[in-house]
């Protein structure tokens, strides 16, 4: 192998030759100049063409039509995807549920707040979040299903302390 024939070395010439047979070489003068003087690189170019012909045999390998199996599997996956709610949908439902619980908790807090003449929503809210007045104590005043759920979900006053 020549380290350099003309202006470029064999390694560079082979890289150019590889691009040339792919039609990806814009200027082939440098390559031609080298290959005209280098017998080994000239043989390399011939080998590249032989290789292409060989690999064409791999490309034309026999294959069996797997479409019926792919179609069946794709349909099955579509059906199962349709049955299972998407994560986005689950997240939306969860957000709605939490939101509804929050609204109901506010309503309950307002109902359970001291009914003094100046009692308003802000004081009820303060009552709800105050450590001195644990929310569970307020909620236990009623036994509706919503309140039972809130009691179960809310941390106990003892845990809070």
């Amino acid at each position, binding site marked *: 192998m020549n380290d350099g024939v003309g202006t470029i070395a064999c390694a560079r010439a082979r890289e150019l030759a590889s691009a040339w047979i792919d039609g990806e070489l814009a200027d082939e003068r440098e390559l031609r100049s080298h290959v005209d003087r280098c017998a080994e690189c000239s043989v390399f170019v011939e080998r590249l063409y032989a*290789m292409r012909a060989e690999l064409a045999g*791999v490309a034309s390998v026999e294959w069996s039509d797997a479409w019926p199996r*792919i179609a069946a599997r794709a349909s099955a996956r579509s059906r199962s995807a349709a049955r299972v709610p998407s994560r986005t949908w689950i997240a939306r439902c969860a957000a709605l549920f939490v939101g509804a619980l929050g609204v109901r908790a506010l309503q309950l807090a307002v109902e359970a707040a001291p009914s003094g003449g100046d009692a308003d929503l802000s004081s009820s809210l303060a009552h709800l979040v105050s450590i001195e007045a644990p929310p569970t104590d307020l909620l236990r005043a009623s036994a509706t299903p919503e309140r039972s759920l809130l009691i179960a979900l809310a941390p106990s006053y003892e845990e809070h302390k």
Partner: protein
Amino acid sequence: MTAERDLDPADIARLRRGDLGALEAAYRRFGPRVHASCRALLNNAADAEDAAQEIFLKVWERAAQFDGRSRFSTWLYRIAVNHCAQRTEKERLRRGVPLPDGDAREFADGGGSPIDAAGERDACELLERRLAQLGNEHRAVLVLRELDGLSYAEIAEVLGVPVGTVMSRLARARERWIELTRAAELRRSVEESKT
């Protein structure tokens, strides 16, 4: 070699909407090439059959994510190459084969056995085994160019590397292939001289 025509835009739109007929159109157009690429990348006919099916199922599941910024074929081949790479890696881990490095990689990670005269009955199988003796990177770039007919720019997009890297990898892959071919010819001539 010319790049094959891409999937029809109307079929792409139908595929994105979940139309099974459009998936069939994609399979009819690209199935043989994808299958041949899988055989060349995995060096196993049975694995290639299964891999080709899995690749089209991934296309089916991810079609809505195809944004049309690249050719459909480029997107499909990216899925195919990644799928085969993942499968090869899983198989390597399953067999407990250490990851080769340096020059040893070129001959070690293909999983193919050395070429011998007794195993050369099937010419196609021989070529696949020779491909398997290339490193993963060289095999992928060669398959995408020679079997799938992708341009350098498309190969660069599929593999996520610069075009210059595609050019140099292809040149090295071809040099290695030619070395292997010469070695096989030499072995064959020695075997023939013995008989």
